[in-house]
């Protein structure tokens, strides 16, 4: 059987679509919220909290048992009107600040927050310094002798080129 280009193309598209469907989100438990505000907060929180088991995923994306348990916990806390800060504190008390994808500014994390700004300032300083130095540089002046030598070299060079072309 020979596959036409069209069927092959549609097979590829189907494959891509089905892989997309799997990767959308693991946190798809059916939840009931008493308000849209609660639902929004729940989704925001599970997006911002890290799953400890599969470290580079958040609670929303992870399918691990622990992530499921912690989503349940977040749901329970959000529906009992706990503030976002209380939920974050609850997680930090147990798992450390590592669970926060958006770490707070404190003495340990300060280099994370200030480091890029310092890098930018250093880069700007170096750029300005180099521009200033370049502006200060004197234009090179050639003596008559230098000019003669240069001309001679250039002529020799073009003569060589001529020879190469002849070959």
């Amino acid at each position: 059987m020979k596959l036409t280009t069209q069927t092959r193309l549609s097979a590829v598209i189907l494959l891509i679509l089905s892989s997309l469907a799997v990767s959308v989100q693991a946190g798809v438990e059916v939840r009931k919220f008493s308000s849209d505000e609660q639902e929004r907060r729940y989704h925001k929180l599970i997006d911002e909290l890290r799953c400890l088991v599969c470290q580079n995923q958040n609670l929303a994306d992870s399918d691990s048992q622990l992530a499921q348990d912690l989503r349940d916990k977040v749901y329970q806390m959000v529906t009992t009107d706990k503030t976002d800060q209380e939920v974050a504190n609850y997680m930090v008390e147990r798992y450390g600040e590592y669970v926060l994808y958006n770490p707070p500014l404190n003495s340990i994390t300060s280099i994370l927050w200030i480091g890029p700004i310092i890098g930018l300032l250093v880069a700007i300083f170096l750029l300005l310094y180099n521009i200033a130095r370049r502006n200060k540089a004197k234009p090179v002046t050639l003596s008559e002798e230098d000019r003669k030598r240069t001309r001679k070299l250039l002529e020799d060079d073009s003569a060589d080129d001529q020879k190469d072309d002849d070959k």
Partner: protein
Amino acid sequence: MLKFLIPLLLFIILIVFLAIGLTNDPRYIPSPLMEKPAPEFTLPRLYAPTATFSPELLKGKVWLLNAWTSDCVGCRQEHPHLLELARQDIVSLVGLNYRDSNQLAKSLLEQTGNPYRIVVTDTKGSVGIDYGVYAVPETFLIDRKGIIRYKHIGPLGPDEIYGTLLPLIKKLKQEPA
């Protein structure tokens, strides 16, 4: 000359940092529970489901809480070492059977031996969350005042038990309750 030295120096600094990073274990996350009171709980016991256990009962003693499941590879690895530790009768070993079925837990302990003085069943995993358990096996060392003094993530081997745990236990036993 400086033009080449500065980037080279920066490159070497970068390499040193990356090399240090390679030796770190990304799965090791320092527990915020260290030097804090062990969270209270009351859980049914595996071999006496109508009876319960809570850490309060061991106040005044140095004890170990070991979180395990019947289907975890690391737990099987450390199991013989835990049996050996139990045989020496130095410290009370409490097993926290985390999110497991009682039946599977019992049959595993029957097959391989039971190192625990008490096994409690955390079927829903809520105590595991309170203790920040994220990768079984995990072991907590709790002192006579009920404070968590040491936590080990991953299977315990002879190095951890004889090199770290036992000397620390000896020291903690001498502290006032």
